[in-house]
């Protein structure tokens, strides 16, 4: 199938289907809808309720997507947000997306399919993976509603492990790694478990874990180790790939000034949002803190201290 230049206008990749070595891309017609929800998949899921999309989805090769993106470079890619989870990343995405000229793709499943597929096929050439990642992000970063100018990507927490590939794909795009005091993160995960940190739900290797080492009944150890691995990759992103480190506890004014400067956007372009409410009952939180302090100190304290040292050095 050959594509003429106009034919993917308004379409967005939503799914990759690995068929042998090469993925095929599945697109739906998003039309002029801007990605506004705090999660990409929420926008797409809502859209998929229209029966049209199931009957008129379309599939292309990666090469066709590359050709399309090459002819239609899309919005300026201004920043990648990596994060530890439960650390204010959603609020950060919301604040970026609050500006109608900015588009945030938050945790798109189609990117995860690509990164996970690449991880599972180590024999794929780096050069090919780089082309694919560029093409997919370029296809996500197309203007849709009109008036959009800048594009941001909020990654999944574990995708910071793929920083080498993402940096190779986008050598000049600003990255940051957002984190938070680890006991608060552990408490949040204990109170409301995330599916990706339940052993066996997501492929353990994706979060750099080995399922065989999971001790029954010790989800806290699994979580602590997986989160520590994410922190280590965040630190690596800072030290080797130029990512800015951001602690959610920083004073918001100074923090956003740093973030805006790093992403090359005027601070005035980022409307302030109302403060997020503290989640969970206080008693429950205190109880969880007591229970998780030991394991957090053992698994996460050291890397957190190193992140903080590196961050202070960046702030200067």
């Amino acid at each position, binding site marked *: 199938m050959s594509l*003429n230049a106009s034919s993917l206008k308004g379409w967005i990749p939503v*799914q990759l*289907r690995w068929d042998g070595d090469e993925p095929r891309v599945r697109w739906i017609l998003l039309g002029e809808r801007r990605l506004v929800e705090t999660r990409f998949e929420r926008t797409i899921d809502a859209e998929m309720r229209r*029966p*049209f999309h*199931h*009957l008129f989805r379309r599939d292309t090769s990666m090469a066709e997507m590359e050709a399309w993106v090459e002819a239609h470079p899309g919005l300026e890619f201004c920043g990648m947000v990596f994060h530890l989870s439960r650390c204010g990343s959603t609020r950060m995405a919301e604040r970026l997306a609050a500006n109608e000229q900015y588009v945030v793709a938050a945790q798109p499943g189609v990117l995860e*399919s690509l990164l996970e597929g690449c991880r599972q096929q180590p024999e794929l050439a780096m050069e090919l993976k780089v082309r694919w990642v560029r093409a997919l992000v370029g296809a996500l970063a197309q203007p849709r509603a009109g008036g959009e100018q800048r594009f941001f990507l909020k990654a999944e927490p574990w995708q910071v492990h793929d920083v080498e590939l993402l940096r190779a794909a986008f050598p000049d795009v600003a990255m940051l790694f957002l984190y938070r005091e680890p006991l608060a993160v552990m408490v949040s995960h204990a109170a409301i478990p995330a599916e990706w940190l339940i052993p066996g739900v997501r492929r353990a290797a994706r979060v750099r874990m080995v399922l065989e080492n999971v001790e029954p009944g010790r989800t806290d150890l699994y979580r602590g180790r997986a989160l520590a691995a994410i922190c280590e990759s965040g630190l690596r992103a800072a030290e080797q790939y130029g990512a800015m480190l951001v602690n959610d506890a920083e004073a918001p004014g100074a923090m956003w000034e740093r973030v805006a400067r790093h992403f090359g956007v005027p601070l005035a372009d980022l409307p302030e949002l109302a403060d997020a409410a503290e989640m969970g009952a206080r008693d429950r939180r205190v109880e969880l803190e007591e229970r998780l302090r030991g394991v957090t100190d053992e698994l996460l304290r050291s890397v957190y201290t190193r992140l903080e040292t590196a961050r202070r050095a960046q702030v200067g």
Partner: protein
Amino acid sequence: MLNADAGNAAIRWTKLPFVFDAALLRSEVAGIADDAWVAHFNKNDYAGEWSSVSLRSRSGNVGDIVPMGHGAEYFDTPLMESCPHLRAVVEAFDFPKRAVRLMRLHPGASIKEHCDRDLGLADGEVRIHVPVETSDKVEFIVAGRVLPLREGESWFIDFSQPHRVRNDGEHHRIHLVIDGSANERVFELLERSLREIVTETFDPPGVLRLETFREMVWEDAELQAELLGQSGLKSLCEAVVVAGARRGLAFSVEDAESVYRQSEQEWKQKAGR
């Protein structure tokens, strides 16, 4: 050892190495009194007329065409006795039989796409089809492929897969359908068939024309807007059939629904979510 757990359960269909004399079978079927045929029981699943007689049933009656209850006993009906050629076909297959029926799809009738979840080979169920009377105007589609079942041939098909049938011909389509439990001999037969027989299948022509129509939709913003506005599956499929016909592309609502369902299934199974 061959058994249901050793990968054989994934056999979706195969033509079998037995070919019967369809003319002899037809002459026997022609002798069955017209009032012996009983209209099919699940009226949600078909449009038009669809009727059966039993050669083997739970009650031993010709008119008992409901093949329920795997544990139940089955008995030959008087038809089995009076139709020696059909009986010889049944006996050619060496497995414990349950229901044995002649299934008759009338001209213009169709069976809507559905899965018979309790008829999977994985669950030890086997169903053999022997077309007695059919034509190239009959479309027999399993898992999105047209299976060319021709008179006198014998086929194994796993009906736990989505399947639909349509008789656009001018005559009845009549199949002898033999149900039973898969045993060692069945798996040996299927294995041998897969090795020795090439079972060709085809894209449904309506689905191919729908594919052409979809490519038109990709290029046509006006058509996109018109069809995007359809909020129900049925109204969308009907609008699509009309829009296709306007462009000289004939396909059915069933073709559209089938493509839709497969696509929706793939969406639900998408990885990484």
